[in-house]
């Protein structure tokens, strides 16, 4: 056994009608593209609904973080439906509660506050991502 960096799968909830769904998605893009490129990966959540084998393999073989846009908790419930325990589940509204100066707006596309809040949230999740990425991997 040796320690090496694993992929960490971060899945937003797919919200189409709520600002916090958009915030969840933008936070994942910030993680993937700016904060931990090459480590954080994602998948389309609806692929889990159709039991897509590649998507299932991805969430089975790697630690998973979910970010939900509302208490319905679609992202973590869809992952757990497949018998997989998520390493961390977040609700996007809590990013705002921790940073009340950045009230997000916009649904299809986030406004400037929303984009800033997503960047802050992604920075704050980086530590958890790093811990999960340092898992033990069979060699």
């Amino acid at each position, binding site marked *: 056994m040796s320690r090496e960096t694993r992929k960490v799968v971060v899945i937003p909830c797919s*919200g189409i*009608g709520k600002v916090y769904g958009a915030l969840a998605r933008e936070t*994942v893009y910030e993680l993937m593209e700016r904060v931990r490129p090459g480590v954080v990966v994602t998948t389309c959540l609806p692929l889990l*609904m*159709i039991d897509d084998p590649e998507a299932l393999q991805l969430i089975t073989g790697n630690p998973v973080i979910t970010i939900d846009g509302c208490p*319905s908790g679609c992202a973590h*419930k869809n992952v757990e439906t497949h018998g997989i325990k998520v390493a961390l589940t977040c609700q996007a509204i809590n990013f705002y509660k921790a940073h009340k100066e950045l009230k997000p707006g916009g*649904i*299809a596309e986030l406004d400037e506050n929303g984009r800033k809040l997503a960047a802050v949230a992604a920075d704050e999740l980086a530590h958890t991502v790093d811990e999960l990425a340092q898992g033990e991997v069979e060699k």
Partner: protein
Amino acid sequence: MITLNVLKVGKVGIVSCSGEAIPEGTLSRLACRKVLDELRPDQTVTICLPLFIAGGTEERNFARDFPTITVDGCEKQCARKSTEKLSGKPGKSLLIPEILSRHGIAKPVNLRNLRPEEKATAQVVAEEIARAVDEILKK
């Protein structure tokens, strides 16, 4: 049955695949929101797709309560398949790559922060969805 529903509620349900991991999924979401917010706001309703798993009976009845158009970002057709499996048969199923190829438009490349030409593409797709809404309501 669809006709009865239309008479009863006069609305069409739009279900976008959400596609977080693929630019065409982003296009699907944006185009659907355009229809919901700008092109046919009084004739359309939507639901977050993963609620078919995470929600209750009311959510799962969506495609029985409304004649539904599914819009998918790629051949995996998560929205069509999930809606069929978990809610009810869609009235119409649209596929972004088919719409793009009919209009001779290049595939989008960005997951977020769409370029002006990609936003123009979202408008073209939205107009196709709006036409499909009109067709269903005319039946």
